[in-house]
Structures are given as C-alpha cells and as structure tokens.
C-alpha cells in the first residue's frame, strides 16, 4: 500500500484545511478512503450511535498537484484508513502559510499519515514541520460497510436559509425539546417546530426557493403547498450545523 500526495497551491490548501475542519466537527473518528481519482471522508452510521452517517468526496485533481497511490491489490485498488479527524485538522492548521504540503502513508513502528509542511518564513531558511498522525488500516473484509449511501428520492427539496440563522434558531430550541420537526413544501416554505406539554414553538421561513425538479421526478405531481415533515434529533442537527463553515 502506498500513498503520496502534494499540494502546492495556497487556495487548494486552504480549501482542504477547511474541509478537514468541517469533518473534525462532524465526526470524532472517521474513515479516509483513498482511490486513484478520489479522496473520501466517511462516517459509517453503524460505528456511531444515532444513525448519523457522512460521505464526503473530493476529486483529488482539484486539490493535489501530485497524487500517487497503490491500493491493497490491483483488483482492490483502494486504501481505507481510520483516524481521529481532529488530528488531521490540527496538523493542517499549522500549514496556513505553507509553500508546499506533502502527505504520505508511512510506517514508523505503526501506520501513520505523515503530513510534512514547508512553511514560508521571513528569512531565507524555510521551516519544515512534520506531523505523524497515527491511524489504523481497515481490512478489506470491512470495506463493504463504507460504501456510498444511496440518497432516496426526495418528496420535497428546498434551499435552506442562511445557516447561521438556522443554527441560532435550533440552538435556542434545543433547550426546550430533544426532537425537532422539520417541514417544507415546494413553495419555498420551511418550518421548524418543537412541541412539549407546555409550549409549542414554530419558526417560519418563507421564499426560500426550491431546486429545479428533474423530468422524471415523482414529486412533480405533488401539490406545492403540501408540507412534507420529518422528526429529527435536535442535537444531531445542531452538530451538523456547527460543522458548517462559511464558505
């Protein structure tokens, strides 16, 4: 198994760092899948209670100027690694003013992801920072747990309001109830509702806009004013909102 990659562009590095920060906020431990075209950060819902899963896909050529990998075997040309997401995001945090960033899979007494950064500095000599992030290699027999989740056909798709506003609303609601009802329709209306014995609180968002429907989408026949609703755990939703950065 081999993996070497290099980032030289500052914007790519910044973007990669922000992705890593977001992952760190969403999942404590996650799986990194390396394949010839892509890099995936995966959170498998069986590992963490509560049924939250995450799939993040990056086209490697959008980030890396050099990218070489060799998977477990020719037929199974992928590498699955488990690591603590915060370790990666902290290592990347030091790469703010980097000239180059190199990531490679190494084995220093145990498997590591070695992140090596060459920092720009005032003087002629540049600084070199190296981080060895310990990780576990996931054996091939477990790979089936980490497949891309299929997103079911939606009854309603809607554009969310400004995430910051949404987050502050949900945060206040968290103090009242553990469950939140989200309902939305094809007229661009979204409601967040909580209900307890003593009080019901609803926050209404209007004029949000809906993504255009595909021609074979079943929801074309739907009454636009009809609301579709789901019940979710507030804390999981808040965790998701907290992980979002302002792009």
């Amino acid at each position, binding site marked *: 198994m081999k993996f070497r990659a290099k980032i030289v562009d500052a914007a790519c590095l910044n973007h990669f760092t922000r992705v890593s920060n977001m992952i760190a906020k969403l999942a404590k431990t996650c799986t990194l899948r390396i394949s010839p075209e892509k890099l995936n950060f995966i959170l498998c819902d069986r590992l963490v209670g509560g049924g939250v899963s995450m799939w993040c896909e990056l086209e490697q050529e959008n980030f890396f100027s050099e990218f070489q990998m060799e998977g477990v075997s020719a037929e199974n040309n992928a590498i699955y690694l488990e690591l603590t997401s915060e370790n990666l995001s902290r290592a990347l945090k030091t790469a703010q003013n980097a000239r180059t960033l190199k990531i490679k899979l190494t084995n220093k007494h145990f498997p*590591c992801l070695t992140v090596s950064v060459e920092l720009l500095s005032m003087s*002629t*000599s540049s*600084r070199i*920072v190296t981080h*060895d992030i*310990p990780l576990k290699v996931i054996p091939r027999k477990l790979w089936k747990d980490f497949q891309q989740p299929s997103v079911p056909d939606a009854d309603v798709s809607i554009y969310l309001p400004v995430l910051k506003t949404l987050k502050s609303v949900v945060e206040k609601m968290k103090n009242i109830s553990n469950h939140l009802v989200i309902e939305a329709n094809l007229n661009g209306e979204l409601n967040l509702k909580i209900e307890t014995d003593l009080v019901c609180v609803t926050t209404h968002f209007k004029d949000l806009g809906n993504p255009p429907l595909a021609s074979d989408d079943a929801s074309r026949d739907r009454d636009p004013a009809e609301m579709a609703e789901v019940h979710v755990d507030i804390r999981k939703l808040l965790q998701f909102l907290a992980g979002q950065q302002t792009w």
Partner: protein
Amino acid sequence: MLKCGMSGTQVKVFGKAIQALSRVSDELWLDPSEKGLALRSLNSSSSACGYVLFSSVFFEHYQWSASKEMNDDGRSLYLNCKLGMKSILPIFRCVNSFERYVEKCKIFTTSDKCKVVIQFFCRHGIKKTHNVCFQESSPLQVNFEKKMCCNTLMIQPRLLAEAMVLFSSNEDVTLAVSPLNLCLKSAHGELAADLTNSVYSEMLVGPDEFDFFQVGLDTEITFCCKELKGMLIFSEAVHVPMSIHFDFPGKPVALSIVDMLLEANFILATLAGNSSRSCSPQSLCLSQAGKRSDWRQLNSKAGQRGMHKPPECISRKTTPKRLCPQGTPVKNSAAEDHGSPQLKKANLDNIHEVPRSSVGDTEEEPNSFSRRKFSSMFFGAVSSDQQEHLNQPFASLAMASDSEDD
C-alpha cells in the same frame, strides 16, 4: 512599606506579567526592594520558577522603605508577601482594556496589617480599590547563571509562538539544537504516540530566524510547554525578544526577557538523561508522587521542617541522577554521563537558593549549610550530610523510575 504608581499602559504590562506567572503557580510573591518590584512564583513541584523584576524607573513613582526593625542577625525585614493567584488574577483580568480605561494605578502596602491595596483610577472619576490580604512568607530566590550556559538563543516571540501552536499546554516538548538548526518536537516520541493516539510533531527552525544563535553543545532538552507559552505571551506583549539559555539535559533552562525597564526569567527543570523514551507524562507524575512521600520522610529525619516551606521540592526529572553535592564525589554512574567534573560543579554553583527568611529556626544553622541543602532539594540533588541516609532510597528510586511500571 511599598508605594508605587503606574499609568494605564504600564499597568497593562504589569497585569500581563501576573498572567504569565499564573501559568507557573497558584501563588505569587510580591518582593519589593530598592531596585524595584519583583514578582516571583514557584510551582508546587519546584520544577518551574518565574521571576519578573520591574525596575523603579518602570513606575511613574516608586517608593520602598524597608522596615526600621532589624532582626537579630542584622538583616532588615523584607515584605515577605505571598498572595494567592486566585485573589490577584481576577483583578488584572481585562488587562487589554486597561490602556483605554485606566488612567492610573496605585499599589501600596500598609505596614501594620498584612494587606496590599491596589487602586485603579479610571475614566469618569471611577475609583476601584482592591484590598488583598497576604500571607507572610519569604520567597525563594533562584540564582541561575544564564551567561554560563553553552547554548543561547534569542528569538522574536511571534516566530516561536507559531511553532508552539503545534503542542498543547500540558505536553512536554523537546528542544534539540545543533549548529545547523533547532528542532522542536513532541516529547513523547514516536513509540508512545501509538498508545496515546496523539500526533507526533516536529518543527525545524533555521538559525537565521533567530536574533542570536549560539550553540556550543549539541543537545536535546525536554520540559513542559505551559510555562514557555506563558513567557511567549508576555514577551509579545512587551515587544522584547526572548532568550533561551540551556546546557545539557537535566540542567534547568532559562527563558528570559531583558529590557531597560524590566527583566523576566522563567527557570524550568528539564528531564535528565535518556528518559525521553520511557517517560510518558503519566509516569512522570507517578514518580513525582513516589518521591514526594520519600522526601517528607527525609525532611523529618533531617529535621528540616523548620527550614522552609514549601516542603515538596521535587524535581521533575524522572531519576534523581543529579546526585552531586558540592565537592563530594558521587557514586552514581549517571553523573559520569555528563562528562567532566567541571560540568557537574557548574550545575550546583549556578543554582542555589538564598533563603531570606528570618524564621527563627534557620538562625541556628550557618548560611552556607542551609544554602547547600536548598540547592540540593530544589533540583533533586542531595547535600553531602544526607548522603548516607539517602543513597539507599535514591538508588531504589532510580531503578523504579527506569522501569515502565511506575
């Protein structure tokens, strides 16, 4: 009797010094003298000591009059003022706003009661008065000859602070120097990372980033991050570069800032010998606890209780290999690791405590003897008089710490 006054800008620096010293310990000694006002702190395990001296010209006005009463041996009483950080730190909490908000600050002591009064004269005619009671306790003074160190580096704090974000405050960090560069790395080493799932980080810094880079001895020292970070913050606040003075592992490292108006020194114990491999933070703490109880027994045996508080002068080193009392030959193989007898001697000559207390018991013993005992307690070495009692327990302690199961 102390009486001094500062402007808003000056009290901001004063507050920053207190914040930096709070990283060393929960206790602060206020030690005024003719030279100026010194703030001192010493942590409970005696592995770190902080000292900031504000010279009399730093203040808008400064007045110190030693008490007229003399002690039996002809020394005048010092202030001997020990404050709890918990009482004094909140007073200087919003230190960044002091420049705009505070016009003047006065600090004075009252001779009759054990009280320090800190008064802030703020905008809009607001006057805030804080009365802080103190305990009578004489501060420990550590004289460390910075100039005698083989390795001296001076760096702008911003540059080192960027490196220090790699490490969290509770970690030990290893500083390795050679004439080519400086390497800051995680102390726990690559082996331990697997067990603790923590990242091993390393940063190489070239010599031209330093204002001054003199390396006489290729060496690696390991010490705690916390105080270093505190000193860096203070150094940035006063816009003065920080210098680092050190030698071989085991000998303390001094972090210092020297300016016309103030001088600050943090002296930190470093790990001795090849302990970096076997030493994880957990085992350090355990060996300290083990040694602490031994020390208390020894203290009572030697009748040192009257000498001085704090009693737990335990070094952070995992093995007390610095068993080199002044002039006495040492039967300890570790001592030979550190080369010539000259080096061994340098260790003790440079580090001695000068107890300035006028506590009754100490007067019976001659000054030089008490000084020797303190130097040994402070950094783990042992004085010649206790050699016989202590060699045995120390030998066993040394072996216990060498093994993994502390």
